């Protein structure tokens, strides 16, 4: 039945096509309420970049506080008003900055910005579909995301400021409006924004899954899909299964806040006043939150892994090493990521035996992660590596993933986590393995598919500068934080001035802040490159990277429906790079084996006996000819 629907869909589009060239779409339906997946991808990307810049500026603000805890900056008061009285950010606003920075980066940039952009752009183009399964829902998905972003940012304008209980918004802190200023209207807006965000994410995810399952072109069986698609597909599944649990958690929190229920609250005396809550458990919220929260970190990293795998294969001119292992490890991560959430809760007072079980599952999930790393290294080995900016960012992603992943092994060990939990060690861990790695995956994708999105090329030299400065600064920012954590320096501290033992880290904090400022300024180089290239970049050719995947068979000028004629048929996997005997060092997926007799190998016909026979015939005639000579 589903296949039928696909044919229908493709058919109608095809018929319409002749007309579509002529009638002009209105500005509104082309750029604003667009249902074209390529335009929606661009909308997600540009909104994501905007949110990333905002969250980055927030981080610079709180880094200034950490570097100069005793200095006053009158400019801050001019910019932030009551949030920074007398030239210093207030402790409450500091926590708000940390909270909104984390929330925006994790959800709005690395979830919606990353998956939203590349799932929308690549899924139809790489599986060979004319659009998403439901273009209308796809449009809604973007607009819910947009609304969620606006509401999240609007919380800066309420009297008491934005939510400030940390991006994990643990109750009772987040549930009691009197516990801190940010738990007032700011938290209400946070919760509303997140509900809309999850709705957006679900509409997107359902679309991605159904498009991948139902709308692949002829010949594109699952094992011929590029790793980007595998990653985006599994990411969408993770999101669909995990995000609803966050909504459940959030809704119960809304009840506790406004209806007077006690799901998360019990035995509370706030400022000497007993509160009428009994029987709830704050730990329940943490279970619900991390049941989403841990899959969420893989929702963030898996698209970056898929993108990097694809880009590294293209630019090493080599097949990705161990394609099947790569897919199975993605599947392994997907499944396992649902049973490790408790590692965020080792020291909550949860039953220690449960902690032990979560430690076991957590360290199991490191195995597929390790396999992926080794396979990336093997992909580079004896390659013919072209350093495009996209390639550099993909490599940076691997480097960060290794550095940050290894510290996960410390944290996953419950006994070690006793002393590491909630210190800067954790901050270093997840900013490398998730923050930096995923952002680099995203930037790699932007550089790589920019020609596909905008029909023009970005400037390579600026790309190089962008990469090296960001790469070096990210390490300078996050590497020293490990040692702060090992000295027992807690995260989410407004200042380290109150403890004799922490004052020695002030010089490091100043150093880190300056590295962060340089990294942030570097991003303006990227923004310049990005926006100028949209209008003035060198015109792109159809397949600028000499890549095998389907998106490069579409014309440079975008059309609604992607391919002017029929959708091409797929004959082979996407990684036939540098195949011995082939003329070029790449063979696109659309080239049938019958045209590449000289490079075929028996392995290509594992489940195609007729083809194998053909090949045998071909090789034996070849041999016979040689003997004649």
């Amino acid at each position, binding site marked *: 039945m589903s296949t039928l629907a696909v044919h229908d869909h493709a058919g109608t589009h095809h018929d319409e096509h002749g007309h579509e060239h002529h009638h002009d779409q209105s500005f509104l339906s082309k750029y604003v309420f667009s249902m074209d997946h390529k335009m929606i991808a661009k909308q997600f990307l540009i909104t994501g970049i905007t949110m990333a810049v905002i969250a980055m500026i927030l981080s610079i603000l709180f880094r200034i506080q950490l570097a100069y805890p005793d200095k006053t900056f009158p400019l801050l008061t001019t910019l932030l008003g009551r949030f920074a009285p007398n030239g210093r950010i207030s*402790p409450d606003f500091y926590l708000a900055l940390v909270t909104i920075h984390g929330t925006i980066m994790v959800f709005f940039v690395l979830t919606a910005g990353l998956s939203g952009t590349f799932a929308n752009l690549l899924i139809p183009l790489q599986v060979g579909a004319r659009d998403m399964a439901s273009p209308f829902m796809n449009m809604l998905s973007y607009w819910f995301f947009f609304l969620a972003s606006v509401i999240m940012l609007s919380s800066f304008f309420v009297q008491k400021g934005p939510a400030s209980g940390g991006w994990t918004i643990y109750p009772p802190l987040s549930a009691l409006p009197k516990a801190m200023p940010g738990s007032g209207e700011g938290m209400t807006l946070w919760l509303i924004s997140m509900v809309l965000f999850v709705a957006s994410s679900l509409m997107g995810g359902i679309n991605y899954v159904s498009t991948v399952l139902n709308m692949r072109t002829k010949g594109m069986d699952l094992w011929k899909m590029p790793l980007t698609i595998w990653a985006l597909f599994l990411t969408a599944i993770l999101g669909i299964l995990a995000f609803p649990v966050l909504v459940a958690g959030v809704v119960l929190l809304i009840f506790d806040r406004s209806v007077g229920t006690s799901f998360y609250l019990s035995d509370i005396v706030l400022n000497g006043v007993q509160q009428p809550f009994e029987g709830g458990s704050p730990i329940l919220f943490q279970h619900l939150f991390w049941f989403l929260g841990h899959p969420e970190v893989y929702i963030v990293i898996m698209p970056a892994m898929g993108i990097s795998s694809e880009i590294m294969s293209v630019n090493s001119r080599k097949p990705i090493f161990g394609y099947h292992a790569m897919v199975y490890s993605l599947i392994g991560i997907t499944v396992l990521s649902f049973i490790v959430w408790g590692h965020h809760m080792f020291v909550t007072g949860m039953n220690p035996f449960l902690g032990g079980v979560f430690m076991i599952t957590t360290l199991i999930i490191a195995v597929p992660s390790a396999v992926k790393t080794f396979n990336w290294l093997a992909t580079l080995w004896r390659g013919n590596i072209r350093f495009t900016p996209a390639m550099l960012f993909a490599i940076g992603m691997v480097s960060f993933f290794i550095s940050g992943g290894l510290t996960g092994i410390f944290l996953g060990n419950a006994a070690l986590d006793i002393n590491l939990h909630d210190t800067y060690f954790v901050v270093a861990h997840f900013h490398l393995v998730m923050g930096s790695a995923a952002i680099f995956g995203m930037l790699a994708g932007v550089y790589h598919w920019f020609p596909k999105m905008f029909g023009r090329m970005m400037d390579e030299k600026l790309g190089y500068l962008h990469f090296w400065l960001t790469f070096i600064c990210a390490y300078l920012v996050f590497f020293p934080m490990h040692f702060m954590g090992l000295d027992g320096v807690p995260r989410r501290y407004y200042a380290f001035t109150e403890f004799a033992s922490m004052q020695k880290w002030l010089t490091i904090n100043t150093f880190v802040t300056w590295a962060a400022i340089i990294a942030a300024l570097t991003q303006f180089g990227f923004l310049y490159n990005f926006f100028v290239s949209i209008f003035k970049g060198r015109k792109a050719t159809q397949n600028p990277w000499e890549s095998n995947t389907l998106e490069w068979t579409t014309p440079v000028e975008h059309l609604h429906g992607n391919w002017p004629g029929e959708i091409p048929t797929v004959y082979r996997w996407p990684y036939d790079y540098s195949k011995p005997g082939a003329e070029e060092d790449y063979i696109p997926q659309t080239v049938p084996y019958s045209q590449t007799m000289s490079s075929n190998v028996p392995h290509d016909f594992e489940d195609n006996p007729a083809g194998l026979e053909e090949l045998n015939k071909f090789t034996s005639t070849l041999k016979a000819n040689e003997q004649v000579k």
Partner: protein
Amino acid sequence: MLLGTNLLMAQTAAAGAAQEEAPKVDWTGVAYYVAIFFLICLGIAIVGKILKIYDLTLKMQGKKGIKWNNIMAVICIIFLLAGLYGSYWSFTEQGSMTLPEAASAHGVKIDEMFTVTTVLTMIVFFVTQILLFTFLFRYRHSDKRRAHFLPHNNTIEKVWTIAPAIVLTILVVFGFFTWQKIMNSENLKDDINIDVTGHQFAWELRYPGKDGVLGPKDFRLVTGANNLGVNFKKKSSFDDLKVDTMYLPVNKSIRLNILAQDVIHSVYMPYFRVQLNAVPGLPTFFKFTPTITTAQMRTKLDDPKFEYTLYCNKICGGSHYNMQKVVRVVTEAEYQSWLSRQKPYLNDALRKELHFATANSEQSGASTNRIALNN
């Protein structure tokens, strides 16, 4: 956005906030930094143009233009070398600023495991990063060469699935047993029970009196003088002590009974490798044995002012960053003499209040458990 906050600020300022000495913005300073930024941008633009012209002249001479692949490959190697040196420097320089050896019995086990984990992971770290960047250099693009077509190799893939699995299994097994041992330690008779209660933004400490038993608490009993809500219907409450600094006798088993009153806090004593969240409504405990006295640690660290501290490690509001208690590990004799000088929790104010409470409760007919004291 900025406009909006300014407006709001103007309102609050008008409402009479601390406006008197509104600090002045040093606009020349700001302009100076902005000018520097634009100068750097200009410099980059000029270098870019020069590179472009150079590239074009090379091409006009029939050469290939700037070989960016080679340049990037060389930078990769430079980065690798600088990175190796940098991480070595960081390990020695900042590594030496981290916590000293554990001052508790179980902490020693944790430290051992930490060392093993560090050694194993750092081997992987250095090997993989070195391979990554040398591959980049070694296999940089050349027109004369083709990449080696190698889609997979089942043997080596099995090796590098099983090898990490084995290493991780070893770590898990040790980790699991250490963890169970730390968290499931039995309660001994001569454990010293200490009650640690967190609230915004301080810790309250309560020691048991001579009976060695802490009286029970109930949040419904909290009043101004009885801020922990100790239940004085129970005998064990009467000799409880209210203390300000956490004194611990060395080499004695300590049991911290942990609770929070308002939001989640976390009892964190990193020198002892102790941490457990303080959760409202969920009493928890952590058992450990301190092994190094404050005085010994002072000589070890060569810091006569050194103090162990207990601080909050779970975001709990505006003053989360300053919620600490001094912890002193002392000899048994010092401990006893200190203990004998501590004041009972049941102070005069509280006695008075409980009297009042009795009188009041008789009138209102409520709260019978406050009569306890009079009986």
